[in-house]
């Protein structure tokens, strides 16, 4: 016998879940139409072309360097912000949030201005680094877009590790760096790895700032998102779609890894 209250309960769940289904349907619609349009054989065809793999490789190694740079800044700064109080805390919070929320396109344009003005333009000319239309510019853009985001993540990681461990470690005679490397860092390991994966995935997907900062020339600054745009504009839909699908693959795999590792973070 179906009770009225049961019906109410189930209809309640169905009502809210319906919205999830709507969104899922939207995503499914996008993915399926694209997959159907491209066709599996075409996908394999384009995937086997060296050009595709050059793009993929470029994306991966530039994103990796940018991620290393981001984490190298992110871990120290995140630790600092988690442990110490700074004067003008509000100003600092705004400053850290700003680069995350500012449109990446705007970040790109500011990087353009930054590299054309003193002192940065003299430094780059002295060192002979070329940023315009070059891969170094790609790395700079990927780094700039991800670094603040990275800091927020690392800061949250260190905030979950109680400072008491460091106090005890130091009372036993270990210096702060010793306790940091032997205790805090290992305890934060899982959250930091999650942060690294997210930052890397974000760096792989960065394009908007590149459009404004570096400009795109075939074969030189082709990271995957850029290749998608260029191929699209050039009418080469097959190439563009294949690269796109690969981007989607990278995104899903990264987020799945985050999901698996994220569940194993140290409690405490």
């Amino acid at each position: 016998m179906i009770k009225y209250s049961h019906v109410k309960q189930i209809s309640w769940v169905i009502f809210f879940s319906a919205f999830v289904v709507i969104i899922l349907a939207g995503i499914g619609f996008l993915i399926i139409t694209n997959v159907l349009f491209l066709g599996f054989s075409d996908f394999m065809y384009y995937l086997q072309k060296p050009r595709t793999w050059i793009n993929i490789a470029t994306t991966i190694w530039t994103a990796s360097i940018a991620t290393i740079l981001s984490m190298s800044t992110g871990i120290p700064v995140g630790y600092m912000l988690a442990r110490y109080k700074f004067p003008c805390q509000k100003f600092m919070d705004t400053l850290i949030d700003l680069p995350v929320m500012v449109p990446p396109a705007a970040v790109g344009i500011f990087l353009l201005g930054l590299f054309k003005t003193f002192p940065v333009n003299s430094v780059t000319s002295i060192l002979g680094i070329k940023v315009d239309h070059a891969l170094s510019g790609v790395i700079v853009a990927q780094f700039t877009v991800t670094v603040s985001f990275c800091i927020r993540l690392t800061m949250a990681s260190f905030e979950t590790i109680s400072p008491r461990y460091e106090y005890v470690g130091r009372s036993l005679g270990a210096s702060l760096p010793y306790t940091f490397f032997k205790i805090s860092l290992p305890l934060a390991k899982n959250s930091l790895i999650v942060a690294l994966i997210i930052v890397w995935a974000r760096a792989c997907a960065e394009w908007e700032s590149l459009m404004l900062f570096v400009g795109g020339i075939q074969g030189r600054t082709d990271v995957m998102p850029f290749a998608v745009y260029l191929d699209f504009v050039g009418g080469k839909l097959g190439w563009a779609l294949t690269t796109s699908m690969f981007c989607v693959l990278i995104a899903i795999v990264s987020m799945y890894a985050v999901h698996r590792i994220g569940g194993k973070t140290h409690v405490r």
Partner: protein
Amino acid sequence: MSGSRWFVYVLYAITILFIVSVCWLFLSNIGYTDTQSVLELFSRPWFWKSVKLSLLTSCVTTIIAIVVGIPASYALSRFNIPGKTIIDVLFASVIVLPASTIGLCLMVAFQYEPILKIQQALGIRIVHSMPSIIIAQLVLALAFGIKAWRAAFDDVNPRYEHVARSLGSSRMRTFWKVTLPSAKVGILAGIVLAWTRAMAEFGAVLLFSSTFRNRHETQFSHISKFLGIDRADILPVGMWMEIEGGNIEQGIAIGFVLVIITLLSVYALNKISGKGLQTNKI
């Protein structure tokens, strides 16, 4: 022991260096653009139309995101939907997708044969139209919104709901009177985040909607002319067009407009939640 002291100084130095760099990123551009460019920009009617267009589309996008996203977030937070893992991973993946991919997928999806036929039957063409801006913005606004709203609902102890219902309140009433107010801070924060992300959208709009500024007058509907948003692009696209046209100073000026809008958002966010972005909730 100097070990600890040296360590702290190095950390301080790196942090200060970072702060200075962020400030300089913005400040150096103030020098690059001059007041004349800014004033010239403000005098162009196209600029103000862009502002209106950006604001209008973002607001509509945010409203749609709220209507669809908040119930969905609640469902994800509270119910054990089959395949939750896949759904979580999927929704999280959207945030790390390149904007060009999103734009391209949208383009292909709406140009797909059967879908195209539906559009033709209805007499509309979605690709390259103004409503398409909203669709393009919606993808990421929804992704960010759901992330924030889900976290907000996760933070509300289900015990409050149990108690309310034991006191006789229906589930719907409990949701409106107990759950939502408890999650108020997180919900508002999510709304601000979704709106800001919609304002910031560039890549997907570029590929899906293309540009509007250089189109002919007749291509715009009466509504858009009435609203004063014809022949204008959303701000980020407008900014890019200036750069492509060699007009870097005005492009940077638009960039600053966007930064100021972002600052207002961040300020609003800080005011609402008392803390900054809670990106620790993955």
